[in-house]
């Protein structure tokens, strides 16, 4: 992680535009932004809201390590990774990953890498509140619903990294 990178767990609204400005660089021809947004359903059940919990100091360390790894793999200018905790309503941004680089292939690849790894490693949990009560979403096998992985985005972790991106109501399709 360079001095100019930002990695933070926050408990307030994420200002994605500010993050976008933060990664600007005269050398950067590309900025890739991922926003994880709370959606209104998960596994066929309506979701009213989510609550996120995090072991913030460890999450920030883990994410900084992921940023380091991304910097080793790709030539990047700046990164900003912010995850919000607390209560989030449908439509709110739970996590943002913003990456600038000279060219777009790198920006896309690094941005995806960071969010994928964050979802695997960062000690951040979400609790879903919906019509059938509330429960903590836990991994690809959600104990309450007994559902399998990958229902939402249809890819079930086929990147081989074990991550399940269909487990919670926080990503736009």
């Amino acid at each position, binding site marked *: 992680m360079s001095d100019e990178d930002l990695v933070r767990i926050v408990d307030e609204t994420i200002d994605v535009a500010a993050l976008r400005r933060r990664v600007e660089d005269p050398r950067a021809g590309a900025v890739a932004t991922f926003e994880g947004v709370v959606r209104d359903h998960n596994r066929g059940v309506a979701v009213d809201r989510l609550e996120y*919990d*995090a*072991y913030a*100091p*460890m999450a920030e*360390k883990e994410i900084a390590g992921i940023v380091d790894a991304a910097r080793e793999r790709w030539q990047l200018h700046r990164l900003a990774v912010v995850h919000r905790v607390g209560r989030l309503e449908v439509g709110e941004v739970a996590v943002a990953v913003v990456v600038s680089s000279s060219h777009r292939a790198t920006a896309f690849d690094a941005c995806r890498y960071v969010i*994928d790894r964050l*979802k*695997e*490693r*960062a*000690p*951040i*949990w*979400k*609790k879903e509140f919906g019509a059938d009560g509330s429960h*903590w*979403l*836990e*991994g*690809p096998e959600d104990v309450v619903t007994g559902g399998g992985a990958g229902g939402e985005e249809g890819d079930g*972790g086929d990147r081989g*990294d*074990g*991550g*399940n*991106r269909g*487990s*919670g109501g926080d990503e736009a399709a």
Partner: protein
Amino acid sequence: MTGDGEDGRAGEGVVVEVVLFARIRELVGRESLSLRLPSGTDVDGCFRRLAERHSRLAPLRSRVAAAVNEEYASWDRVLRHGDVVTFIPPVSGGGPG
């Protein structure tokens, strides 16, 4: 509130702080607690001690990862006095594996 001091003479062993999150926090009912453990206790032993007091944790053993001092740790890591331990329920990707 401090933890148990009941498993040996006062001052023996190591005292660790266990911080809890998500479902484990709800099952235990606390954000953190102190445990006095025999010297040489490893992370697995710490979990077992916690599960002795909160039996609903026991089935989670295969589904949690462990961290010591804000870094992922192996279950056979021997704990030292003042270590901060946490047990990490599965994150959306199932943890580091």
